[in-house]
């Protein structure tokens, strides 16, 4: 059967769908344009969280790497790789997020560190901040929290 052109109604429904999706994307992702190339390290033992956080960062054209445990994060930083931003969970395999953060700070690393974790208690917040993260965010990492930080790092 030869393909047929959509009727006027069908075309407008599809256009509405696509335009609606695009508008929602713009609204949800809070478009910003970074002047500088930023880099970020995501440290999360959970694959779903790590993939989502990396993709969110990449949607803002932040170059990202991901590791799934604290020991590898510390080793990567110790090898000399530099990042503008480190996003790190509190509970991690091998070496936990608190200790990994302390070790990274002890190396003299001063980049912005976000503690992004499923823990929501005040004691956890205080502990993570005391370990050296600059900001404590309860998961999920969302544009509302991330965009102001990216703007700050970009000097906007």
């Amino acid at each position: 059967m030869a393909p047929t052109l959509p009727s006027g109604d069908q075309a407008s429904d599809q256009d509405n769908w696509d335009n609606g999706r695009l508008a929602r994307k713009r609204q949800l992702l809070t478009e910003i344009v970074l002047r500088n190339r930023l880099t970020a390290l995501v440290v999360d033992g959970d694959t779903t969280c790590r993939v989502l956080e990396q993709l969110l960062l990449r949607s803002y054209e932040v170059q990202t790497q991901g590791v799934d445990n604290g020991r590898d994060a510390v080793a990567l930083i110790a090898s000399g790789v530099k990042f503008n931003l480190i996003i790190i969970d509190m509970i991690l395999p091998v070496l936990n997020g608190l200790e990994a953060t302390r070790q990274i700070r002890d190396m003299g690393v001063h980049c912005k560190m976000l503690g992004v974790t499923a823990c929501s208690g005040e004691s956890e917040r205080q502990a993570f901040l005391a370990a050296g993260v600059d900001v404590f965010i309860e998961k999920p990492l969302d544009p509302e929290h991330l965009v102001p930080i990216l703007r700050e790092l970009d000097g906007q």
Partner: protein
Amino acid sequence: MDLAALKTQLKNFVQSMFEEGVLDNQFSQIQALQDSTNPNFVEEVITLFCNDAERIVNEINRNLGYQNVDFSNLDSYVHQLKGSSSSIGANRLKLACANLRQASDERNKEGCLQALQLITCEYCLLRRKFQALLHLERSIVELETNQK
């Protein structure tokens, strides 16, 4: 069913999941990340999440089967499930994890078992709905491909 009708059905189905509290706005963020460079992103993330979630629920089940429960081990599993649930927008499952977290903090094994029952129910509901959602998405992609 034609393409427009399928898309409307998908939109309404996702909306019903929001209205029932099964999903929250975080899922909309994930949908917004899907584009032509990541056309199957939603399906990939859902698959990733479900594989991990099932593994974790099984581990929690196993841990609670021991006479002496290792609550710190349990904590790390609950933390992981709560985190991934939050990140994918699985609202009711995230809330169910909070119940288990509390029972675990109190070292209350019976409370943990009850909370795990709820987690299992919520996860099964979520998985069923995700499967229906993905079936609709695949049907849409198939129709769109055939129309090209």
